[in-house]
């Protein structure tokens, strides 16, 4: 019987394991391997061990500027999406009194997630552009007499697009954690004399930390790994940690692109590990 159960379990996880092995483990292993190979013009990858790709990267001041800029974006976006995600979830879970309405409003927030990111990015152009809705509105209202140039193709529009695309990744996990909080806990806290802020700070916030951690993990890794949003929304003015990789790929310099990829991967994994250290996400997920 036990033997039988083990076999069932094995068969159940086998397909998942096979896909993850061939389309995640092997590709990542090969990226690591190739990052130590030499690149030669017209030949491509030459299987000779070298650290040159990494040395090039670290000695290139652009790498550092790009990483700093990406980390800056990640922190700004993390702060905004956290504030939005926390209060929107709080509103839906604790303020909306009808469960059906709460689920309906939650779905309203999630529907855009299932539509194309590129289209959602482009859709800011007629809004933020020089002749866009905001500028023409402000001009008509007589508030400004010159259109704002910084609305589009700037750091501002990059942040707007990130928040637009990624806030959902905060809302869903935080909503999920908050929905599990036993409401009688809040009443008990109030009966015990806690203020509304006291309840939020001492009860709701700690009990939502799994959701917050998962949300932060998604948002930070999405921003760190992004190339396309920053390129489109900054009009090519800003780069990201992935820009170097992109350039190398255009010249088929796979080894150096692989080295960039490995560095990025290490940074992302360090962030993920830090978050998992703070909160045992797995314990909360698999119960």
């Amino acid at each position: 019987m036990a033997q039988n159960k083990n076999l069932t379990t094995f068969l159940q996880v086998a397909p998942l394991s096979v896909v993850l092995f061939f389309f995640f483990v092997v590709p990542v292993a090969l990226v690591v391997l190739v990052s130590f190979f030499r690149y030669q013009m017209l030949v491509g990858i030459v299987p000779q061990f070298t650290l040159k790709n990494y040395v090039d990267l670290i000695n290139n001041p652009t790498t550092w500027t790009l990483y700093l800029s990406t980390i800056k974006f990640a922190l700004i976006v993390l702060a905004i999406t956290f504030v939005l995600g926390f209060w929107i979830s709080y509103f839906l879970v604790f303020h909306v009194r009808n469960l059906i309405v709460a689920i309906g409003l939650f779905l309203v927030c999630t529907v855009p997630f299932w539509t194309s990111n590129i289209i959602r990015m482009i859709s800011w152009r007629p809004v933020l552009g020089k002749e866009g809705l905001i500028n023409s509105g402000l001009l008509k209202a007589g508030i400004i007499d010159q259109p704002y140039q910084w609305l589009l193709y700037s750091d501002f529009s990059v942040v707007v697009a990130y928040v637009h695309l990624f806030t959902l990744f905060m809302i869903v996990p935080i909503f999920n954690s908050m929905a599990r909080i036993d409401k009688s806990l809040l009443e008990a806290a109030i009966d015990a004399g806690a203020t509304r802020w006291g309840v939020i700070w001492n009860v709701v916030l700690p009990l939502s930390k799994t959701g917050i951690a998962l949300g932060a993990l998604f948002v930070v890794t999405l921003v760190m790994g992004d190339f396309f949003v920053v390129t489109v929304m900054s009009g090519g003015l800003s780069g990201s940690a992935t820009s170097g990789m992109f350039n190398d790929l255009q010249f088929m310099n796979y080894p150096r692109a692989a080295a960039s990829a490995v560095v990025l991967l290490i940074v992302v994994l360090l962030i993920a590990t830090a978050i998992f250290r703070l909160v045992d996400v797995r314990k909360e997920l698999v119960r």
Partner: protein
Amino acid sequence: MSASHSYGPRPWTFYALAALFTLFVIFLYGPMIAVLVLSFQGPSGSLVFPLRDPSLMWFDELFNPRRTGDVMGALGRSLPLAVLVMILTVLISVTAGFAFRRRFRGATIIFYTAIASLIIPGLVLSIGTLVTFKYLGLRAAWYTSALGAHLSWSLPFGLLIMFAILGRLSPSYEEAAYDLGASKWQTVKNVVVPIVFPGMIAVALFGFTLSYDEFPRSWLTVGTKNTLPLEIWTMTTNVTSPALYALGTVTTVVSFIVIAIALGSIVIIQRKRSRGK
């Protein structure tokens, strides 16, 4: 169903947060609506408001491959790919989800591999998959390398959803069914499936849309022929006409149809079940 505080007058925070929520929804949908409206721009109109003599000319232009590239072809690859990813995601993540209800050797490593696969930057995976196919001497194509790259991202999502769903399926339900004399098949059919089915639809929805809209993981893995998101990306740099908005409208309509089918069937199933009680 009860509110946090006993029923009574709404606190001021309710109104403040309701206002925040409304602004957020406007922020989410406003630009999409702008694009939707502008895709009906007439011949004398531009890329921005106002809308002049509404027409369908840009949709017409969109399906005329001479000008805008191979949109129909891209759609013809993106849709079957998304359906394939959807089917495989449901089958694989549902079965794997059941395995995780028991402790087994390797559970932790598989779990963390899945999480790592979820958070790895799409571009890194794209490079990795391309290099893998190169080394194996295989040709990258949407139905091989892109399919795998999409699965490496949709499966962890599906697995997380299954964890959330199966968390509600206590093993004692199945034990109770066995104790009452149900066969294994009856238990699966009458106890397990009804609880898990809405979750499976959610997994299917994620599988479809994650693939249909995926860009970074497709970028190097689709081979010589583009999928729809890549086609849109090329258009963002080449096409400076409202045809781009028309494409946006078409893609969004496809997404909305899929979302409506998924959510609608969940509602129907829930209703049937509550009527059965």
